[in-house]
């Protein structure tokens, strides 16, 4: 069979893959985008970021309706129509992936549906519904992403033991739900199910939920969870799991010892693993690290000169926006431009209630690495905007270089924190100083003022809070 020739083939149509394909097409390259599923958009659009945010929005509306009586508004008890909710969510995904598809069409990016398997360093075999096709490429960009990890002891083939993929389908609202892993996926989905009415128990092996975020940012989220979940147990592990009729029996080992418990459903959210076991990498010169991620240099090049890797499969933080940035770098390098993933600030947002967001250096990081920094904080209790919608459980803080007063990190917790971190990321990327932020007028009354006020607090003259002179 004749091979189809192309300059670039992109394997995987998620936020890394389609960004790479589009950018390459915009630069005039001939591109084929290979996607094994019917719908473009990858995990992010179909089984991750977007559906989880849709559900979080829906459940937030429920929550607010329930809790508005003190404002003088009383609703009847919300009733849940799960099929309708699923259809609404599906509609959003359909719209978005349709958008991606038409953008591909406008750019003349050929989308080939099927599994892509490397035959060698310049040939990709694609198993499409109409048989095998061979793509002969100059360069390939691997963007096949990751999937939820499911340790062997949890993998009983019981559909009531879910990963995030199944949990987002909300087949039912279980009465008792166990969430294994208190990372951002476990906490976000725990929030959804708790709002829908499940009694949620979160177990986390480490000594805190949301490891990696600063403890003062995690505190309001923990408080919310302690109130709305049945329980949050840290330093606790699930050591055994078995099917017990319609229930699932688990053995939980924590500081209080061993316990046997019964749940209606279990969500396993203990991390993600790369999807590159069966794409023929062994037929190329691509090498992988001990965890199975493809190793790349700052130019996103693998050890095979023709093959690049981006996104989750290339390791590092597994976030859509990191994949999209890497996509641009790979395409630029392929086109002979100087480009590298270096000193790039990747903001992180956890869509819990309240949200946590941070960018750059965290306080915990600085401490761990012995870096001397100054920290300036502004509590949202002093924000008029936060008070106006009853969410004063927030905090804005800046991590500052003492020598130059350059802003090295921004940390936020609070309702809508995710929308605020963009300004923080820009400040860090622009090498802004605290004074730059303090001198910039922010609109009133908005939550963005908290960034300015945190900067003013650094100098001891924030309007809406009183800070004593720094004593260290």
């Amino acid at each position, binding site marked *: 069979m004749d091979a189809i020739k192309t300059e670039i083939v992109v394997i995987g149509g998620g936020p890394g893959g389609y960004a790479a394909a589009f950018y390459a097409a915009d630069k005039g390259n001939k591109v084929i985008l290979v996607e094994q599923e019917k719908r473009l958009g990858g995990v992010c659009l179909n089984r991750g970021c977007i559906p989880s945010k849709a559900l979080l929005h829906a459940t937030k509306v429920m929550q607010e309706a329930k809790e508005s009586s003190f404002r003088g508004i009383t609703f009847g008890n919300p009733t849940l129509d799960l099929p309708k909710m699923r259809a609404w969510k599906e509609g959003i995904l359909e719209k978005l992936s349709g958008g991606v598809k038409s953008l591909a069409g406008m750019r003349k990016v050929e989308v080939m549906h099927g599994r892509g398997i490397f035959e060698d360093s310049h040939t990709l075999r694609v198993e499409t519904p109409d048989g095998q096709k061979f793509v002969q490429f100059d360069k390939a960009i691997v963007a096949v992403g990751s999937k939820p990890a499911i340790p062997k002891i949890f993998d009983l083939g019981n559909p009531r033991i879910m990963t995030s993929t199944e949990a987002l389908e909300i087949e039912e609202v279980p009465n008792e739900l166990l969430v294994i892993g208190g990372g951002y996926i476990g906490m976000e989905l725990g929030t959804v199910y708790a709002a829908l009415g499940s009694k949620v128990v979160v177990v986390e092996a480490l000594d805190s939920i949301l490891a990696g975020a600063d403890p003062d940012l995690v505190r309001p989220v923990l408080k919310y969870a302690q109130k709305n979940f049945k329980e949050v147990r840290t330093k606790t592990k699930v050591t055994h799991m078995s099917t017990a009729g319609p229930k699932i029996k688990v053995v939980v080992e924590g500081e209080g010892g061993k316990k046997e418990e019964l749940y209606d459903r279990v969500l396993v959210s203990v991390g993600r693993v790369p999807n590159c076991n069966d794409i023929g990498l062994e037929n190329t010169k691509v090498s992988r690290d001990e965890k199975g991620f493809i190793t790349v240099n700052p130019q996103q090049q693998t050890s095979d000169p023709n093959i690049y890797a981006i996104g989750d499969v290339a390791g590092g933080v597994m976030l859509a926006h990191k994949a999209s940035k890497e996509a641009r770098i790979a395409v630029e390098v392929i086109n002979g*431009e*100087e*480009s*590298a993933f*270096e*000193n790039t600030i990747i903001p992180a947002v956890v869509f819990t209630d309240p949200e946590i967001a941070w960018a*750059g*250096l965290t306080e915990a*990081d*600085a401490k761990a*690495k*012995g*870096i*001397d*920094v*100054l920290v300036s904080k502004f509590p949202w209790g002093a924000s008029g905007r936060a008070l106006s919608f009853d969410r004063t459980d927030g905090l804005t803080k800046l991590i500052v*270089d*003492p*020598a*130059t*007063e*350059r802003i*090295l990190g921004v940390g936020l917790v609070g309702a809508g924190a995710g929308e605020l971190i963009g300004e923080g990321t820009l400040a860090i*990327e*622009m*090498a*802004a*100083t*605290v*004074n*730059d932020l303090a001198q910039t007028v922010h609109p009133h009354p908005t939550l963005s003022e908290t960034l300015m006020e945190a900067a003013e607090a*650094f*100098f*001891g*003259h924030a309007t809406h809070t009183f800070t004593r*002179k*720094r*004593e*260290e």
Partner: protein
Amino acid sequence: MDVKLPKLGEGAESGVVVSIAVKEGDQVNKGQTILELENEKAVAAIPASAAGKVSRINVKPGDRISVGHVLITLDGAGNGAAAAEAKAEQPKKSAAPAARPTRRAAPEPEYEEEDFDSSEEQPEETAADKAGFAPPASPSIRKLARDIGLDLRKIQGSDAGGRIVLADIRAYIHRLQRAAARGRGGSAAPASPAAEAKPPVERIDFSQWGSITRKPLSPIRQTISRRMVENAASIPHVTQFDEADITALTELRKKYADAYEKKGARLTLTSFALKAVANTLKKFAIFNSSIDEAVNELVFKDYVHIGLAVDTEQGLLVPVIRDVDKKDLFQLSKDVQELAEKARARKVSLEEMKGGTFTISNQGGIGGAHFTPIINKPEVAILGLGRGAMKAVVKDKKIEPRLMMPIALSYDHRVIDGGEAARFTVELVQAFENFKEENIKI
């Protein structure tokens, strides 16, 4: 807090203290000159890396010191209590924009030429450095620097917090260009400002004295021209003359020429010269070296790749024969023949003309005696061979007719001394005169 000697620049690791500009008890500001240091390149002003009161001076004029040496000790900076004090003061300091800390105390659009690489300020490591952050500059400036290959870490930002803005990049490039221009003029001794201010070429109308023909300079000729000017101007050449008695060698060549011919190789004097030179280079490694001017180091090569000047219709080409020391005379003869043919057919690749460690220019086939060859940079020596001629030579107090070959060795006097060159020449002459027959047999 101790103020240490910062890194002065490439290859300049130490220097001699010329004068000290502060005394004990003085209050110094960050960036203020504390002493002057003379190194191989220039006299450099060494700035204080922090502000404070001088509590101790640890050096005196005449001291030879190197990077990291403690120059002075300051009170009121660096140590725990003082640092806290400084931090407590910071809010006040920064509230007034004029006193906002910047990396360079008083940013000036123009850089001092003298301190281009002699006083490159080594700022203390900031929290941003430790956390692995990019130098303070916006993403667009960082992209620009990447595109044009600038290291932002070497540039002092003039904006708040030491942020590097476009104006800083312009000033830096300006400074690099001036330094580069100075470097070109500088190598040709002090009294040569002419190199910089080259007058426009005067065009002469040759046809006023008779008829003429004009031909464009071929690219090869232009390259030869540029390289010859460069090599002749930048290397102090000395040429050592001698003669080698090749009477016996010529006999041997005649004796084995047929045998070589039958096996498809021409045994020529060039093959013998390659072997003789390779053996001599093994004994005098300096002739097989190069100068790495960027770091002031000599590079000794364990390989012997000899370039052969080949006279072609288009002009001089110098293909290189690899690993001459490891090849026998037969192989060398074949290589010479092959490369010369390739060069004349213009089929020799750029790769095949690179990596030479020494060059031989044999004009013996054409005629002429001694000449002064120009060294082929980055090599440090070149051998010129003239045509062998019968001469009346006094041997054992008797006059004998001997076939004498003129040899001329040009060497780079920066790295090779006259004595060494004379010894090399003597050794080489002997290599020609006592060529062992067993090395010729095939």
